[in-house]
């Protein structure tokens, strides 16, 4: 399936190659460079590129292109999903997936890639198993390793792969047994000029951090499972019980993982936490413009809105901005033409306002479209959909675990058209 993998940075340097079958010359990447050049923006590179003898399927992540070489028919999503899994594994191992961390840990990267694919077909992609095979580097361990010459490769061979619960490693032991669940909801919305909702939906995920000894069997139930009409699960979740009883029953992997994600598309359920009053205008004469933005709370369910940031991609002709913010700070980058207004906490008594003038390139025609605003925000202790975890039960182990649930609402792709 996957023949080779090349990692290429934003500047076009090919800094790592790995082949699972016979070696393919790196000159195959020239076709990719061609497409890269044509696309201008890295985001616009087509994910599937055809060359005379191969197909290149690539993803762009953390400023790195992961370019895989394919020779025969294969579902493209299979490859794309796998490449993202590789990037996530790197992130999991090294804290971040960047060119420098990959270069620093090139041996571990190679060992990981070797274990993840056999002859181009995925072999071990579960982080629990990989961590048994190859230990992630820590500062202490790498120091010890250089002194003693010991290795990062697990001494014991993993048993998880052989069991029917391939996502969990065996022999887990903790002195403090704890299970935490984070319900994170993101609001995707498009609001039009007048503030009416064009489109809104909620994307939720439940992230779990489970540190429990032995083989616990957990059951998570919700107060209002009917809200969830479209869900996807980590492989550990038993589909049948969800279908019949609407509870999530699973033997968890050890450590951090994403238990499920869900999607609430019914628009009437989606509360919009803030409103934006804006007035951006460019004058025909005098090459200048005005900007006036006010943000206020709308449906916040009595919670405070934090981390409020407004980002505006200004038209190319805007040279500089001379504004005055009643709260927070603003910054206009004349190179990328991005105006960022970092407000912070939203105070309902005194609404934050950003006001002032924009200066445009003289002589250039005024932009015909006003830029749209992207809103970022965060509300702690609230799942905007109203989803509530009812209880978590554990079977199969004797001890009493510590349990915790946290709710956060964030803005996802939240756009206000002007």
């Amino acid at each position, binding site marked *: 399936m996957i023949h080779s993998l090349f990692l290429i940075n934003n500047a*076009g340097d090919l800094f790592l190659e790995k082949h699972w079958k016979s070696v393919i010359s790196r000159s195959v990447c020239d076709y990719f460079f061609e497409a890269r050049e044509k696309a201008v923006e890295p985001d616009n590179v087509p994910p599937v590129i055809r060359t005379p003898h191969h197909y290149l399927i690539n*993803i762009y992540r953390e400023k790195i292109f992961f370019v895989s070489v394919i020779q025969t028919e294969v579902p493209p999503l299979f490859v794309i999903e796998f490449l993202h899994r590789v990037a996530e594994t790197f992130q999991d191992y090294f804290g971040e997936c960047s060119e420098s961390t990959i270069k620093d840990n090139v041996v571990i990267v190679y*060992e990981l890639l070797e274990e993840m694919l056999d002859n181009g077909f995925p072999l071990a992609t579960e982080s629990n198993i990989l961590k048994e095979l190859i230990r992630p580097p820590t500062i202490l361990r790498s120091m010890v390793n250089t002194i003693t010459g010991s290795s990062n490769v697990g001494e014991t061979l993993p048993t998880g792969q052989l069991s029917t619960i391939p996502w969990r490693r065996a022999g887990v032991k903790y002195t403090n047994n704890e299970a935490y669940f984070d319900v994170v909801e993101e609001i995707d919305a498009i609001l039009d000029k007048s503030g009416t909702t064009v489109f809104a939906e909620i994307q939720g995920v439940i992230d779990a951090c489970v540190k429990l000894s032995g083989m616990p069997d957990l059951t998570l139930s919700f107060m209002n499972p009917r809200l969830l009409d479209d869900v*996807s699960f980590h492989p550990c979740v038993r589909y049948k019980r969800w279908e019949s009883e609407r509870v999530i029953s699973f033997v968890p992997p050890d450590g951090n993982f994403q238990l499920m994600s869900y999607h609430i*598309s019914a628009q009437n359920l989606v509360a919009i936490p803030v409103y934006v009053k804006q007035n951006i205008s460019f004058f025909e004469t005098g090459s200048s413009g005005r900007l006036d933005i006010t943000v206020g709370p709308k449906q916040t369910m009595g919670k405070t809105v934090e981390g409020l940031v407004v980002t505006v991609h200004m038209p190319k002709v805007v040279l500089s901005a001379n504004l005055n913010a009643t709260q927070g700070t603003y910054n206009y980058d004349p190179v990328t033409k991005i105006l960022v207004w970092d407000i912070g906490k939203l105070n309902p008594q005194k609404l934050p306002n950003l006001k002032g003038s924009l200066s445009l390139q003289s002589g250039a025609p005024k932009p015909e479209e006003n830029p749209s605003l992207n809103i970022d925000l965060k509300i702690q202790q609230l799942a905007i959909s109203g989803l509530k975890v009812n209880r978590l039960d554990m079977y199969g182990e004797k001890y009493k675990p510590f349990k915790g649930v946290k709710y956060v609402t964030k803005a996802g792709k939240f756009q206000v058209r002007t």
Partner: protein
Amino acid sequence: FSSGYMNVNESNPSFTLFKYELLKYLKEMLESSKESLKLEAMKRIVGLIAKGKNASELFPAVVKNVASKNIELKKLVYVYLVRYAEEQQDLALLSISTFQRALKDPNQLIRASALRVLSSIRVPIIVPIMMLSIKEASTDLSPYVRKTAAHAIQKLYSLDPDQKEHLIEVIEKLLKDKSTLVAGSVVMAFEEVCPDRIDLIHKNYRKLCNLLVDVEEWGQVVIIHMLTRYARTQFVSPWREDAVFDENSEKAFYDSEEERRVEQSKPYIMDPDHRLLLRNTKPLLQSRNTAVVMAVSQLYWHLAPTHELSIITKSLVRLLRSHREVQYIVLQNIATMSIQRKGMFEPFMKSFYVRSTDATHIKTLKLEILTNLANEANISTILREFQTYVKSQDKAFAAATIQAIGRCATNISEVTDTCLNGLVLLLSNRDETVVAESVVVIKKLLQTQPSQHSDIIKHMAKLFDNITVSMARASILWLMGEYCEHVPKIAPDVLRKMAKTFTSEEDIVKLQTVNLAAKLYLTNSKQTKLLTQYILNLGKYDQSYDIRDRTRFIRQLIVPNEKSGALSKYARRILMAPKPAPVLQSAFKDRDRFQLGTLSHSLNSQANGYLELSDWPAVAPDQSVRIVEVVEPAGAPVFGKSKPGKSDEKFYSDSEEEEEEEEEGSSSEDSSSSSSEESESESESEENSDDSNKSSSSQSDSEKKKKTLKNKKLQQQKPDSKDRYWSHKALLLIIRTKFFLMHIVLSFSNQFVASCRCSLLCLYVFLVCQFDTISWDVRVSLQASSPVFVPETSRELLHRMTGKGLSAQYRFTRQPCIYGNSMVSLQLTLSNSSDQALENIHISEKSSTGQNIHRFNAIERLEPQASVTVSMGVDFNDSTQAANFQLCTKEDEFSVSIQPAVGELLLPITMSEADFTKEQSKLVGMNESSATITMTPENVSSQSVNRKVVSVANLGVIPSSQENIHRFAGKTVSSGCLVLVSVALKDPDAVITINTENTVMASMLLRQFKTALTNSGP
């Protein structure tokens, strides 16, 4: 940003020098005797490989380390070997014997990794060795090794396609495998080696459908794609002829004539196997893996009846939240789907609204889908959305939107005028590309109804001077020429302007100018004759030969002279022929010829190795080929029912449950089935509403039952238990398991049977009480690998005096260790005889000497006079060397050691007498040790001999047909060596014979048997 950087290093002279030095240095490091230096060298070499530098010169130095004990070093050598073996074939052969040896290793993971590397070395000479290893590994007991074998099949096939026939045999064998680990990999091999051998799938079809949910995600994708192809060849179309793809024809369904026809035709009944596939793939729509969701979606698209298709919509829309690349592929597939079935995605129209932050190719795809979804009802919403897009700063996207508006206008006649007016407004847009695109689209729209729109044509003529984009200018010129009769005054004037600027125009504009001139010459030669000749003269000397050719052609056609023949008579008909309006259709119109979700679909051209999806057969092939005959011993009524596919629609959960039961019964010991856990917890949670005690007891109960279930199975495999007494008991057991199954079935089915379940439960509990006493001894004698005798005596590990109050005793439980296959399990009893509580009792991490010890969980607190029992595992490596370790409390550390008796390093096994003699005959010569002893009279009875032997060593008793010979069998815990012991009584003497490869152990065992059998007493 080109490939120029690639040669930088090679072209740098100092690097070549440096490289030489570096390789020499690395070679020295590899040849040193220090592990750490070697490892460091290998790490640097792997770094070189990763950068794409050539390190093949080091091959001889590296390959020497292939048998290294250091796991990391070994792995890195493997990486190197796989990379360069192809280039250094002769040297690579040196390493082969290492792998061959490892293939026989008792550890399954070592066997698997050896096969993995051996098959990855692309050296044609070793093809026979690879073939042999694959065959052997495909029958390995470990499913993990079998999985590796399935991967190796593909490698060998690409190395030597001539092996195909042999490999197909192996594939056939592995397809029968019941392990979920193997399923995905072997189907992958099938797809690569012999995708046309659909006959191999028949017998495994139902099994694959049933296993699917438990297969790992990558395997699921491959299996689903394969099953899609399979189903298209085996089942008849579920799409009724009268309601095929088109939704519109559904209306026609109610026409009286149609209705009669439907009544006459035979109703379609779906093959139960077809239904099975659809039902078992449906839950996978909830997978976190986008490739799995897409695979199921395409399966439904190609196989499901049209009215069931809607379930995939939501999941596909969910994928749009994923990464950019995922969105791209999913949107492509939705685009193809939305052409055929608008209704599927219409409710989710808003999910395809474009954001300013989307990548350009995502935007265009969303636009495509929105256009496909447009109909009379939603067009106004869509057009309003389009208006926003037209203003976008991304001009390429704005242009694409204008084209989309054009498409909507032609497809939906109600809005044609609105669209046209909107587009005309855009003509005054400041941006050139927008205007140009509008002109092109308006041109296409006008072709459909030119007579009503002469004012628009006039308007465009006015704009002409300001438009510079050549395509737009050319379009206007074409419009003028085509409809010159509608604008008789303006057209000649435009031609006049063009004559002035002709030389500086783009080619495409020049061509259209020539066209316009020709058309005007024919309709209005009075005004334009001179202008036309001027333009034709200019064209004659143009630089582009296209234009020169066209000019020559036109001149001959329209200007009559003696040379021009019959053609000029028809000039008017040729040039002014009515032209059909262009059909504006989706770029995805023809993509449905490819299977959705494939690379070929994404590229819109056939990729290498693409397998065509066949059309439905008119008549279904024989269905009986998929029926699997369950090979079952007589007298197993419970399993007789569990044929897959026989399930009733209503009770599908029960049939699946039976499936799982069967799975479990036949799966090997090491794969503790998750499905059993599942059923346990499920039956449990049904009951646990109020009483947790009860639920836990029910759990242990059901565990017990599982075991007995296994026992029963085992017993059925042993035909030589002919005793009537046993068979009577077996019957009772069967009744019991049957009730147990019934219980599970009921707890799964609907709520209304709850009451009758209660009464059945009572009956069941009653029966359990009745039979519990008998079933216990049944188990002991039948369990294949359970110890015959477990000594109760414990030995002291730590005395309370030396342990400052902590005392510890250990005993061997003689059970297979749960912590590792090669460990001996021990039970430790810790007691606190001091007057203070002891805290944090654990085994220190650092102190173990050589042996691998599985430590018990730290005991946080041990109260005075309390004691606690924990279990631990020690890998003694088949030697009686003591395991030394530190037992620690919060304050102190005590060195302790466990010295195992040689008999504890064994695990009992059972085999038939014939097998025993067969194995024994293999282990002769050096592997046999025997001694003659004189028995004490009280030891002569066969019972006492058995008791003595099994108390000394953990061996299993082999049933013997000769009264004076007693046989025992076992294997060593770590290496799994067979140990066979026989005691032949020849009154008063006895001959003890021990056959094993481990001769050291044999002599020690012999000494102990001697003392045991000569001593009197118990």
